[in-house]
């Protein structure tokens, strides 16, 4: 891998005591955001890049913790000295979004009104709410305008939303493996995942914290389903095929095929640390995302409000957010005469491709960022 890791990093916490009025009508009277930064903010404060996370991501984007050398950030391969998000040049900010379960205020945080975890009482958060909260973090850090806002999947939707809601504060938006809104099929997958959680007897209407339990089975199923949709058929075929763990069929329901073993392992791992209420909130934020709703579905009119330059990238094997969905964004930007480049990257990892290290993919991001004037 060219370049280096940012090395040991520390997370920080910021408290915001101004109420945040949410799209759902709810209000968060005060909240915490945990975040990490890499590199150095320049004197003009013009070199900051915000990296937004996807469904299960968080603020630990790059590097590792001094006392946890194996806890490596989720997008470490693209950030660091000599990497596309070059910390010798840029100041990178990653945070955990509201409603998350990695330290920012979310359903498992104590509700100041009751002293008990928010649970089901945590208000529904939308992508635009995250962007408003991120803008307050930018204020705190003294960043008037981002050199770039960047993300993959749900993270790319936040970058898109930034460009629409705060056009003066985003000079470049890098939107990877995203879509301007979810399709019926996307929403359907999310709903099956939610149903798995909501019907788990340990869910207790979202207040499972009080029962000292967690809807592990539902969350595990939700993740197994989601995981299938993040991979490509070809990749699963290559990786697992019809391989059996033992050489013969056992004619039972225990793990037999390697793909079952893999999915169950992924489900167990995820259910072990992730919060089910956060999963519900994140999938709803995905479902609700549709900035063109403000313009009666006319995405061209919506993107007319943006002023940023754009890099849009999709992956040939991504069937969750196909290249055609990215091209909808490209078309709307072209219709408004915006500066936009679009790369359709041939990678075999389905939707998850955006997290992979690939010389061409990273070369495209690197080339784009090198041309950004600070």
């Amino acid at each position, binding site marked *: 891998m060219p370049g280096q890791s940012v090395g040991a990093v520390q997370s920080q916490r910021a408290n915001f005591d101004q109420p945040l009025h949410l799209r759902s009508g709810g209000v968060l009277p005060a909240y915490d955001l945990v975040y990490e930064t890499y590199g150095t903010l320049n004197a003009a404060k013009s070199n900051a890049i915000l990296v937004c996370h996807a469904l299960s991501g968080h603020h630990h984007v790059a590097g590792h913790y001094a006392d946890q050398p194996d806890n490596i950030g989720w997008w470490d391969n693209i950030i660091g000295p000599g990497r596309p998000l070059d910390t010798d040049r840029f100041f990178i900010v990653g945070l955990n979004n509201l409603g998350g379960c990695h330290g920012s205020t979310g359903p498992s945080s104590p509700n100041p009104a009751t002293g008990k975890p928010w649970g089901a009482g945590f208000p529904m958060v939308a992508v635009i709410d995250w962007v408003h909260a991120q803008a307050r973090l930018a204020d705190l850090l003294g960043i008037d305008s981002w050199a770039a806002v960047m993300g993959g999947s749900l993270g790319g939707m936040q970058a898109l939303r930034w460009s629409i809601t705060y056009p003066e504060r985003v000079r470049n938006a890098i939107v990877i493996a995203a879509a301007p809104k979810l399709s019926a099929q996307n929403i359907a997958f999310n709903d099956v995942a939610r149903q798995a959680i909501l019907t788990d007897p340990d869910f207790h209407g979202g207040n499972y914290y009080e029962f000292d339990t967690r809807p592990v089975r539902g969350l595990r199923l939700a993740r197994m389903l989601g995981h299938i949709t993040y991979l490509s058929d070809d990749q699963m075929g290559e990786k697992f095929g019809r391989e059996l763990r033992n050489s013969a069929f056992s004619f039972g329901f225990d793990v037999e095929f390697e793909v079952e073993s893999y999915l169950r392992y992924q489900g167990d791992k995820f259910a072990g640390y992730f919060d089910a209420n956060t999963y519900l909130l994140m999938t709803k934020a995905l479902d609700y995302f549709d900035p063109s709703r403000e313009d009666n579905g006319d995405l061209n009119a919506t993107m007319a409000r943006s002023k940023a330059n754009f*890099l849009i990238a999709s992956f040939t094997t991504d069937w969750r957010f196909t290249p055609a969905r990215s*091209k909808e964004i*490209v*078309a709307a930007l*072209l*219709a408004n*005469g915006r*500066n*936009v*480049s*679009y*790369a*359709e*990257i*041939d990678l075999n990892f389905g939707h998850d491709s955006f997290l992979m290290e690939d010389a*061409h993919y990273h*070369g*495209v991001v690197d*080339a*784009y960022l*090198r*041309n950004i004037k600070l």
Partner: protein
Amino acid sequence: MTHTLGRPDFELIAHWIEPGHRVLDLGCGDGTLLKHLIDTRGVQGVGVEIDDANVLAAIKNGINVIQGNLERGLDVFADQAFDHVVLSRTLQTVRHTEGILREMLRVGCEAVVSFPNFAYWKNLRSVLDGRMPVSEDLPYQWYDSPNVRFFTLLDFEALCDKMGLIIRERSVLDEAGNPVETEANFLGSLAVYRLTCKR
């Protein structure tokens, strides 16, 4: 196909394009022509390119480039979004000849098309000598050529006539890049056309 600076058809194309115009370059390669037009004519440019390495090179050159396959049309572009749509030395590599010409004039007011003339006398002589032509404007061996359509100036003009396309201007160059005034279909190695259609 990668553009090289100093190509005589580039100068012709640049001459036809007004400052500030909106230009779409199909098969833009590394973006050299667009960069030239942006630097010298102040145009607003967008390129379309299929090849990964060229897309990367165009982004490095600071060009707006959209990765896509011309054979599948120009769906991401709105009707009449451009003043000029350029297809430089690429038409002979496209299977859907009529489709791409129609698409060019859907998204643009004017199409600028350059292509090698297969009836150029040296090409004809080469075939008479028993070998497929290889020249400055046809720089490939038969087995590695990206060209899938082989046609002449007269062939192209007949197609324009059939499709109702209007030829506003034509320039023909010999292999050295000098203008050819007479016997163009025989003496011309490369042709550049400006096309519009009736609206």
